[in-house]
């Protein structure tokens, strides 16, 4: 399971500031297990976000957002609503945000922070990767993750080693920041490059016991069924 938790509501509203019409997409995989997504959260987000000045153009649950083919096939039915949207708010782990971003040409924005990938990881059939840094910036980077795609996990743009759009580490590896630059240029969002956080807080990388307790990991701690005490057992 890829453990992810909701970003604080204020942060979600802030990252949606430039996008008055938003479509909300939910993953039916790990966020269900983490209790950080599902139809219930989509309904809550819709109620909270559909206020004067902002419309929610639609919502949809898709089983596994990490599966791009599935995302493409299911979103096909939502093209009319997507045409009326400025961005898609994605309620999933970082992989789901990146996979969604790769299928649409409007920004895909993360509603969750991803903490860790433990145990069974559901479907993960493509190139998108999430390190569970706990402080998702995909809304600023055009849905391309600098933590997993940049060899140095840089946050402030390309380093001096970028060459013809490739990385200094391997000549055939794309420079993540070149991809981000091209994507943001296409989205008309180059200003995002100046909004990135200067420093990372590595404490977010770890999963606290509290967050473990909010997910179904907690089920591992407590047995699902406790037999009632009967006279025979006493």
């Amino acid at each position, binding site marked *: 399971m890829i453990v992810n938790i909701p970003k604080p509501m204020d942060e979600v509203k802030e990252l949606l500031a430039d996008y008055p019409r938003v479509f909300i997409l939910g993953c039916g995989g790990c966020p269900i297990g983490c209790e950080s997504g599902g139809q219930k959260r989509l309904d809550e987000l819709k109620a909270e976000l559909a206020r004067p000045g902002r419309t929610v153009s639609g919502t949809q649950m898709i089983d596994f957002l990490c599966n791009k083919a599935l995302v493409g096939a299911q979103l096909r039915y939502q093209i009319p609503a997507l045409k009326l949207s400025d961005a898609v708010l994605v309620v999933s782990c970082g992989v789901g945000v990146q996979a969604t971003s790769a299928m649409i040409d409007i920004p895909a924005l993360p509603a969750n922070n991803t903490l860790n990938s433990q145990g069974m990881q559901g479907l993960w059939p493509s190139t998108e990767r999430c390190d569970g840094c706990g402080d998702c910036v995909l809304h600023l980077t055009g849905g391309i993750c600098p933590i997993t795609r940049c*060899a*140095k*996990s*840089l*946050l*402030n*743009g*390309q*380093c*001096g*080693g*970028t*060459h*013809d759009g490739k990385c*200094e*580490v391997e000549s055939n590896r794309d420079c993540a*920041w*070149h991809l981000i*630059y091209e994507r943001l*240029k296409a989205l008309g969002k*180059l200003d995002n*490059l*100046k909004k990135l956080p*200067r*420093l*990372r807080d*590595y404490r977010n990388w770890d999963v606290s016991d509290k967050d473990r307790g909010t997910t179904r990991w907690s089920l591992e701690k407590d047995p699902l069924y406790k037999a009632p005490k009967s006279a025979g057992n006493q």
Partner: protein
Amino acid sequence: MSKLKEALEAGKFALTGELGPPKGVDIHAMMEEAEKYLKGRVLAINVTDNQSSVMRIGSLGICARLVQAGFEPIFQITCRDRNRLAIQSDILSAYILGIRNILALTGDHPSLGDHPGAKCVFDLDSVSLLYTITKLKSGKDLSGNDLIGAPKDIFPGASVTPGADPLEPQLIKMEKKVEAGARFFQTQAIYEPSKFEKFMKSAQKLKVPVLAGIVIVKSPAMAKYMNEKVAGVFVPDEIIKPLSSASKDDRPKVAIDLMANLMKELKPMCQGFHIMAMGWEKYVPELIQKAGLA
């Protein structure tokens, strides 16, 4: 007080040189080269920080020795090998050793060097390192704690690649570096004046002095290597052809003449030169003289 800062703020054309520390503790040859060829000719000397991710004597140690010997060093700091505690601590150490100039760099990836299996750190990057220096200068550490004595007159600089294609992301990052505290720039090697002029026009609004990088092309093979491997650097045929047709003995003279002409052409566009001789320190005096800068 940094003499480099004084000169650049007074609008004087500045020359800086560069030394790469040796691998091992014998610094005799390096110090002798500095005395013979750089002393009195450049305002300050950059000391590289495990350059190309190859382990050597640390930049801090060599900078301290240069201060003792009467030079003004530029302490190059990369973010590859140290986290934010170690870097801040080294900056404070540098200050008490009399080091005032710092060049903030992200650093090459360890996999390019001689310890390719090393863990890379990159807790900070060039932009956040500049921000860190700015914080320290203000009397606070990166977490906002008070310092007992602030390193107020550190003069922080950064690097830029004027020949990068596309140039726009390079300019965006340069602006971020200025916002984070960069007060001078030293560039990657320049061989194309027209491209550099275009870059300087765009960079002008930042109002930060730029020292154009001068790397002497020693041979056609070196030019070929740079064109293939070094990001944002292109050595044109006008430089490669005369080097190819010169005999091996004549090559240094031809190379120096070519570079001197290039420097004459670049001089009106920039605020100084950063000369990276890379083993050809002995030709630096001649180069400076022929470029009309002695």
